[in-house]
């Protein structure tokens, strides 16, 4: 039946390569990749001297790759390079052939495993969480530990886990890749990925040491990648320190505020009562804050997150600040200028700290810098 279909395809293609080519493309569009590959080959077989032949073979080779038939794809690319050396497709065919030979082995000895590898990667493309494919590729690598592209596979698995935020799982695969790497460049990539894992965990010192250790064996591109990694590390560490400073300051300010409230109120119970009563400004500010959050959220959810944190933190700050002042006035009648200034200064610094933490939490610092430097999107 299959042979008859090919004969019919050859007859159609021979009569009119244009029609044969388009018929093959329609098969592809309908999802019949195997049928399309045969139909494209039929175009080249029946009209080898036509301008359609090299493009038909290229389509057939790409279809064969899609099916995981890598040995057949290599054969088709080789045919393009030999039969149509001056064609537009020849350059691409030669490049792809070299890659394919590296994947399947000089004599095609790894064609089946590489084909399965290809099918898994294609199935994973477009899936946000390719759990099934992660398992399939892991099993394939374990079943064929000598597979030449096993390290590439391990790195893909590590990268995918990393993208999914599973840093520890990613680290295990990178470790495995570094251990089994066959070439210095694969080993370097695996170790660089392990350093990236340390960076993602926030182990800045370890990551810095790991990057530094990779310097020696680096070429120009690798050296550039290390420069970039160190730049990222420096930025993240700096931001982390600022965030830590902000958090510590807020914690100290809160502890100080509670202690002052206790002193002003005379007892913990009274202090609790004083702080539990919302000051007037909070009653005014709360609906405004809700409105701002709503507006920000409907316009841009990312900015909405930051505005929600700032509004929430701001309300809490206003509550605490107002309650403290009310409590102080109730006890002493008037607040000294020094205390008022200290109170205002601390409140201002706390507001800045809350805003910074909110912006970093929402991940919009770079957007704010860009908007400041280049204007607002319209």
């Amino acid at each position, binding site marked *: 039946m299959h042979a008859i279909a090919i004969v019919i395809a050859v007859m159609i293609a021979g009569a009119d390569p244009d029609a044969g080519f388009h018929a093959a493309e329609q098969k592809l569009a309908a999802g019949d990749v195997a049928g399309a590959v045969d139909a494209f080959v039929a175009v080249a077989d029946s009209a080898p001297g036509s301008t359609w032949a090299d493009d038909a073979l290229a*389509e057939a080779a790409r279809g064969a790759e899609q099916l995981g038939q890598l040995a057949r794809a290599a054969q088709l690319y080789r045919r393009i390079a030999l039969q149509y050396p001056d064609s537009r497709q020849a350059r691409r065919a030669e490049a792809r052939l070299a890659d394919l030979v590296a994947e399947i082995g000089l004599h095609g000895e790894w064609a089946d495993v590489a084909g399965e590898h290809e099918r898994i990667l294609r199935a994973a493309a477009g899936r946000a969480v390719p759990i099934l494919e992660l398992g399939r590729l892991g099993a394939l690598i374990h079943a064929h530990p000598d597979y030449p592209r096993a390290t590439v596979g391990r790195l893909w698995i590590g990268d995918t886990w990393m993208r999914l935020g599973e840093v520890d799982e990613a680290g295990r695969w990178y470790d495995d890749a570094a251990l089994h790497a066959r070439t210095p460049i694969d080993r370097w990539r695996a170790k660089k990925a392990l350093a990236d894992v340390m960076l993602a965990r926030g182990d800045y010192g370890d990551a810095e040491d790991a990057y530094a250790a990779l310097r020696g064996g680096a070429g120009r591109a690798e050296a550039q990648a290390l420069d970039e990694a160190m730049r990222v590390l420096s930025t993240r560490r700096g931001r982390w320190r600022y965030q830590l400073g902000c958090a510590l300051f807020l914690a100290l300010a809160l502890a100080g505020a509670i202690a002052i409230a206790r002193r002003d109120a005379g007892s913990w119970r009274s202090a609790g009562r004083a702080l539990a009563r919302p000051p007037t400004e909070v009653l005014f500010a709360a609906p405004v804050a809700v409105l701002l959050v709503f507006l920000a959220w409907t316009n841009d959810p990312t900015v909405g997150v930051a505005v929600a944190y700032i509004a929430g933190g701001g309300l809490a700050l206003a509550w605490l600040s107002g309650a403290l002042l009310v409590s102080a006035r109730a006890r002493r009648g008037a607040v000294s200028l020094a205390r008022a200034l200290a109170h205002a200064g601390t409140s201002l610094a706390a507001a800045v700290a809350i805003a910074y933490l909110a912006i970093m939490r929402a991940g919009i610092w770079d957007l704010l810098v860009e908007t400041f430097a280049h204007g607002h999107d319209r």
Partner: protein
Amino acid sequence: MARTCFVAAALLVGCGGPNDAGPDAAPVYNGGSIEIPGCGYTVTTPMGATAPEMGSSVFGVDPTPRMIHLGLTGDPRTTMVASWRTMDETTAATTIKYGKGTALDQTATGITFTYEADFSGKVIPRVHEAHLCGLDPDTTYSYQVGSIEANGTEHLSPTYQFRTAPDVTADPSAQVVIGVVGDCRGAYDVWGQIIEQVQAKSPDLILFSGDMVELGQIQTNWDAFFEAAEPLLTKVPMVSALGNHEVNAVNYYAQLALPGDEEDYSLDYGRAHIVVLNDSPDDISEIAGKAKTFLSSDLAAHSTATWKLALHHRALYSSSTHGSQTDLQQAWGPIYDQYGVDFVLNGHDHDYERSKPLKAGAVQASMADGTVYLVQGGAGADLYPAGTNAFTELSDSSHGATVLTIGPSRLDAVVFRETGATIDSFSKTK
């Protein structure tokens, strides 16, 4: 820079501009133009650059060519532009040796000009451009650029090869492969990896959707960009849209050889009609004015093109940090719908996002019924989180690039990370 051509022995006529004052006159950076009869178009340099002049016999201390890259100003089937700088920035000699296949049997003289590259006015790069015209379609050419002294001493680059675009009338099945990238600004290590991955797909043309640099007036940014891209751009021409980070700086217009006015222009490559727009002009009223008028008239004139692609920086539809750009939706969206543009290629947001087919903002059942909007802003700049919307088909916060394989009735797209791992793939058949 813009629009010129040289045939090997073409006679260059006309050279307007302030530089005509003489070799010893202080350079004046008011731009200027040269018309080349053999090619039928004029090269115009912008304000901030000197008027273009023919390469002369002036040699500096180190005329070694560097930052070589290919561009297009005319018909991609028959023209090509090679641009470069020299180590010394003073050499004015500008020569290209080229020929079919591996031959280097023809020589042509190019043009040269300088521009004020930064705020200080002290960085004055010199650009050399050689415009080749009358080439054969779908043909491989070899070339070397640089200069040759009167005594025969050559200061030439290594030999590179490019291939002209196919003539689809002569070869109806001719496929072209187009790489789409955007937003590498600053992170040239990732850009280098992206270049490597794109190069592995043997593209014919690169489309860059803007933001090549962190800030358009900083020449060191441009130097890093071109140095990283040289392995690819010495073999494959690049056309680009201006991004907001280029800030309409003279550096952009001076260093890139592009068609038309270099802001809003179009070209045909294989069966693809590509319209490129500046969505970040100094005068924002141009979006709904000059650019809109150009877009409408250009698509009306190319309504029968098999594949229609649009390239610009900001995205009409995006779920990431910058989000959908409503001014562009209003100004250009109805025109994309009217003329059935297949794909709109953007950046600005540093992630990958493919929309569902859209028409008037509404999701359509199939690609035949609507335009697909692609955000491919992951050529290196720090990533933004990928969001999702009702219009989102797929989004992914990754560095990467897209490669389109465009044939007579089928377009295949593969989207991949800087590691080579595939993010997405899709096809459209007509």
